């Protein structure tokens, strides 16, 4: 595997996450993972295998019990709390199954909120929010509130909010989990589209078929990497494409 970029975007070395208790819960048991810039990664695995935990560790929302995580070359353990928060504000975008849109705010306000903690001024935040909504195809829904939007549209607003700050890494935890298959696949197409424009994307999904269409699939089982498959013909063009894949 030859890296196109000398420094990986993300590097996990023997990452362990254990929740104390009786007995302690060993959620992640030594994860090694390297993600290069521009990759599109599907994370798959049975329920309770530790996928969400892995994503929140990568997203700096939680600390590993042991092991190292390097993001853009920085060891997260060496950064202060406010540096970590700034890293999330500027470099990492999150998309969740439940959207987490604020009900009293319009689509633009929700998306502009994605820049609130970056230090950007209110006018610029709004301008960029409008652009981001246009990028996800919701230019006509700027003033709508979440209750006036369909599930797929809500998730597009959430994706616009995650992308409005142009993060280096987009983390999506089952973004299609609350959607029907048609709007789900259009969301996946959107993520794929964003990836071709340069954003590194990691998506947790339960949909095997969807996962097959991703150029790289990381399987998690019992807190360990069970497989890490990379297609040689990526980026894939069709979200429903399920080609043969060589084991890495």
């Amino acid at each position, binding site marked *: 595997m030859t890296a196109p970029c000398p*420094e990986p975007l993300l590097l996990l070395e023997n990452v362990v996450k254990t929740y104390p208790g009786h007995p302690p819960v060993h959620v992640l048991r030594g994860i090694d993972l390297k993600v290069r810039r521009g990759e599109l990664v599907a994370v798959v695995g049975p329920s309770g295998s530790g996928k*969400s*935990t892995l994503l*929140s560790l990568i*997203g700096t*929302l*939680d600390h590993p019990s042991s092991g190292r995580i390097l993001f*853009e*070359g*920085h060891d997260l353990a060496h*950064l202060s*709390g*406010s*540096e970590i*928060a*700034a*890293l*999330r*504000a*500027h*470099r990492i975008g*999150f998309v*969740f199954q*439940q959207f*987490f849109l*604020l*009900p*009293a*705010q319009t689509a633009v306000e929700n998306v502009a*909120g*994605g820049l*609130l*903690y*970056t*230090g950007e*001024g*209110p006018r610029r935040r709004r301008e960029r929010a409008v652009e981001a909504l246009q990028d996800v195809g919701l230019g006509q829904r700027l003033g709508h509130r979440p209750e006036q939007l369909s599930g797929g549209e809500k998730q597009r607003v959430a994706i616009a*909010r995650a992308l409005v700050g142009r993060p280096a890494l987009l983390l999506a935890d089952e973004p299609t989990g609350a959607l029907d298959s048609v709007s789900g696949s259009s969301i996946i197409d959107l993520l794929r589209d964003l990836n071709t424009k340069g954003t590194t994307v990691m998506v947790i999904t339960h949909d095997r078929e969807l996962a097959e269409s991703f150029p790289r699939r990381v399987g998690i089982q019992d807190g360990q990497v069970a497989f890490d498959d990379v297609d040689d013909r990526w980026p894939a063009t069709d979200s429903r494409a399920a080609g043969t894949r060589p084991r890495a």
Partner: protein
Amino acid sequence: MMSSVPRPARLSPADLIRLGMVGPRTRTLRSVLSALGVALGVAALVAVTGISASHQAHLLDRLDRLGSNLITVSPGVDVDQRPVPLPKESVAMLAAVAPVETVSATGATQADIYRNDLVPVTQTNGLSVRSARLDLLGALRGNLRVGRWLDRATERLPVVVLGSEAADRLGISGPGERVWLCGKKIQCGWFSVLGILAPNPLVPEIDSTALTGRPQATARLGDDGTPATVYVRTHPARVTDVQAIAGATANPAAPNLVSVSRPSDLLKARAETKTSLEGMVLALAGVALAVGGLGIANTMVVGVMERRGEVGLRRALGARPGQIAAQFLIESVMLGLFGGTAGALVGGATVHLYASVKAWPTAVSLTWVTAGPVMAVVIAAGAGLYPALRAARMSPTEALRSA
């Protein structure tokens, strides 16, 4: 090349205020209700202090009209607690003092007053009968409720002018009715009511007095010319000077046995004393404020629990724990500010309404109008502290998972 770590950013005050409005915008009714407690407390504070200040302003206003330059000179008591009558010349002596503008007096009589001749003589109702000089009404700046004041003709006739309290106790509502004047050393007889005085807070003793003309009192009621009370109006700037020498002037032989007072002092003191009812309402307002604080605390705790998802999301968007705490603290403070301001407005309106019904001047205490909302804000900040810290301490992953 390793890219540098982005710099942490601060939220602008405008952004913080906008963040504080997220909750109230989402749950408007609940926020309004939770601010109601402090609003009530502040309204009560402003209303009670304002009504009392308006009443005081009204009393002082009236005092102004009645004049604070009145001095009363009346008999003192000796060591045996027996009253020492004023010398007959005292009225003339006081009138001769330079800064004195007018002097008038009432004279003592031997009569008591009754509704009719069937009432037992011991039932005097605490009323007294005095003779009056014609200029008494002017000196007191008194007004008539109904009827007429004495004049050169009527001061010789068996007529009385009643103080307001005297008329009420006798059950007399207007002129023309008859009353029975009687005493041990005089011949009893019917007198007709000529007029009734309006209450005069400056000289409340006149309120419970029946006044007749001096010639009539001398002829029939045993008035020997001894003054009962001398009323002295002085130059407004020389009141205390006159007060100092009034005793010696009225009774040079025994200056210490003369009682000299300035009734406006008493009235002013009364206007400025706080009633116990006022204290009780203020205490209740304090309780309402405290309960209002608990209401806000409750709303905030519930709000934080309901909005775990929002907290987790904000952390994911790059919010620091301090920024989360600030958001909820500001929301709480805004509830207090809103409630406090609304309460101050309602309280002020209440004072205005009450004062205009009573025909008092409106005097809203500016101190309380500002202190009320400030107290509400401080209480709300205290109430929001725990929920805010609780939100800030949430682990982002737990907040997102449990939402």
